[in-house]
């Protein structure tokens, strides 16, 4: 987390943390494991009231960020959510809000943003396709203009909260360019398959478009001209995801080191053994580096820095690898109890391992970093 939060931001952080601690403790997360949707609509409306969904929404539509820098504000929530492996479609709703705020028509904004803002409606982003790549080149679904309509064909996978979403922002191909279409889930020709994940509460889904037809007014931005805004959405998604992973790793290290101080073996607290101390020292630099790069990414996106795309991949490659590594090492320190259902650490492993893969694995982002080296 940013070390120089404003008073408003600090208040936001505290409010978010208290809300999660009282309304969504780990016991509640465990209960949601059995549920179909993985979160509670009433709870989500409360979260929306706290401002979780307003950050990317323009003030004209009732939204607004605390600092004028929506991603810097949003990562505050994402990190706190990571600390309590909290449920809720925070990431996809905000990515769609960011896309609409930047590229949506006035009508689209007026129609969609108030519902997202209040938490009454849920929108999500459908980008990756079966096989799981998150780059423009692998988009195969098509958006074909036909008279006053746009026709969608193809399949999108790994779509978060799809089962409860009212609208899906679909990224498709029109010739060499990308086109984004905001599709109500009930549209004819649209088939939603619900899915699950390793995470306790995150649900995903697959959506198939079989010549689904929408008016051209449903296109967000230009037909064939959505490349830049898609890149922006990906960066925002990565920033929120990395911040969440930071929260996951930070909290896991906290409770693990605390446990290791209390736990005796061979007459000593286990964290007095040099190998564990040294491993914790290494994890400290993984964690501090994760915090630093994740913060830097949020700033670079909002400040439209020229290296934001590369930094997004640097961040995902680093945090996406080190975050899960930290949790994994903490399981080892926790010992046998750490691989039982009873201990909470697997809740953190679950979130970490899903975040590792979603929006591109560290290995894939390393390829992107290499491709973006300007040497």
């Amino acid at each position: 987390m940013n070390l120089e939060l404003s008073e408003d931001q600090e208040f936001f952080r505290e409010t978010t943390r208290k809300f999660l601690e009282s309304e969504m403790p780990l016991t509640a997360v465990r209960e949601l494991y059995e549920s179909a949707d993985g979160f509670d609509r009433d709870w989500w409306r409360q979260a929306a009231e706290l401002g979780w969904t307003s950050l990317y929404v323009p003030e004209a539509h009732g939204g607004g960020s605390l600092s004028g820098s929506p991603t810097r504000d949003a990562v505050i929530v994402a990190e706190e959510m990571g600390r309590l492996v909290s449920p809720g479609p925070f990431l996809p709703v905000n990515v769609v809000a960011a896309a609409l705020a930047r590229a949506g028509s006035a009508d689209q904004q007026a129609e969609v943003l108030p519902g997202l803002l209040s938490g009454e409606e849920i929108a999500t982003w459908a980008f990756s396709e079966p096989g799981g790549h998150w780059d423009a080149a692998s988009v195969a679904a098509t958006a074909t203009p036909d008279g006053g309509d746009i026709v969608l064909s193809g399949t999108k996978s790994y779509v978060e909260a799809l089962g409860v979403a009212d609208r899906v922002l679909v990224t498709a191909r029109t010739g060499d360019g990308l086109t984004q279409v905001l599709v109500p889930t009930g549209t004819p020709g649209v088939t939603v398959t619900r899915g699950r994940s390793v995470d306790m509460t995150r649900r995903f889904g697959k959506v198939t478009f079989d010549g689904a037809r929408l008016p051209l007014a449903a296109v967000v931005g230009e037909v064939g001209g959505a490349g830049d805004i898609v890149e922006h959405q990906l960066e925002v998604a990565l920033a929120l995801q990395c911040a969440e992973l930071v929260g996951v790793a930070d909290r896991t290290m906290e409770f693990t080191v605390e446990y290791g101080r209390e736990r005796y073996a061979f007459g000593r607290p286990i964290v007095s053994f040099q190998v564990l101390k040294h491993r914790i020292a290494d994890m400290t630099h993984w964690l501090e580096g994760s915090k630093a790069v994740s913060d830097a990414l949020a700033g670079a996106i909002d400040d439209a820095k020229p290296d934001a795309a590369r930094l997004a991949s640097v961040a995902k490659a680093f945090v996406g690898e080190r975050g899960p590594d930290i949790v994994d090492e903490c399981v080892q320190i926790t010992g046998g109890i750490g691989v039982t259902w009873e201990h909470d650490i697997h809740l953190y492993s679950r979130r970490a391992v899903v975040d590792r893969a979603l929006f591109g694995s560290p290995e894939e982002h390393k390829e992107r970093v290499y491709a973006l080296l300007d040497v």
Partner: protein
Amino acid sequence: MTVTEENVETLDVFGSRARAWIEANLPSWDDDEVDSHTLQNLLFDNGFAGIAFPREYGGAGLTLAHQKVFYDTAAELRRQVPSTYMVSIGMMAPTILDSASHEAKLRFLPKALRGDETWMQLLSEPRGGSDMAGSTTRLTRDGDIYVLNGAKMWSSGAYESTYGLCLCRSDWNAPKHRGLSMIAVPLQGTPGLELHRTRAANGNLGEFCEESFVDVQLPVDNLIGEESKGWSVAQTLLFHERNAVANIGYGYLGRTAARSGSAQRSNFGVLAVPEMVERARARGGSPEARQAIADAFIEETVLGITSGRIMAGMRVGTHKGQWGSMLKLQGSVAAHERARTALVVSGADGVIWDGDEVRIDNPGTTWLGCRGGTLAGGSNEMQRNIVSERLLGLPREPSFDRDLPFNEVIRNQGKL
């Protein structure tokens, strides 16, 4: 070993005899699966169970080299062997053989080797972890019997075993390693004993159990070894356990030659190399996946070859002592790494699936529990201590509780 070279059937003669018998009697991998108990009975009744155990205790009176020949031959001929006696016959029976009285061996070993009774260990305790000598399970002599009070956990397969070898404290005034005893506890229907299976991080009921003992009464001749000399029995047990996990010694019971051959999943449900190749190809065979899969194959291959080397070294005398720890360590490091490789190879399909059902057969869920192997049977840290201290003779970790009366150790906790 109670067997001397001269009176033993040569490996060649034994090999021919075993081959003929296996061909005539053991079912093929392609047949329906035959249950382990039936197979073990068959081996025992024909003199092929407990191959390296003395005949007076129900064994075949041969050596570990003969045992290896038998199971290698069965694998070569693709014949089924019993798959569930790794703990009971591979670890516990050799411990009893090394530590128990002649009477206890006569009483326990034949039934164990025939598979009619099964054994497991009761070592770890809820707050004990790797420090097994810190046991606080209490064994008290009461006239003609012993009374046991306390709790154990991480006890593999206790719910289906006949006996547990239980490490407990019989003298609280002695230093920690010198007040321990080992006793056989009957596990089925014993008054005062409660047993629960542990739910694993993946949500499933696992192999492991927790037991509580409230005034459990045990005959005094259930003691294995002498009273308050149980630590050396535990050491023997751990030695056999590591060797079995490393697939050397008494634990060489055909695990690597199981029915489904090398394509089977390795321990702890991690994807095997062929499955990883399949997934990688499905995703376009990314270069990082190729390197990682090659690594997995390389580690697996080298581990197998290294086991062979260690067994040869034990035969010719160049390798003595705790090499099982090194192999156990190498195996669990590789398995853990392979769990990570499965994530690399599988991408989002490793953690997300279609449908509303909870599933555990995916690399993501496996990863949650992939530390099982680096913890169970002595953590990697313990194995590294053993390799460096006992195999290489490097100085021991400074100890803060070794020579104090155990009562005092308990009082000192929290004071370091």
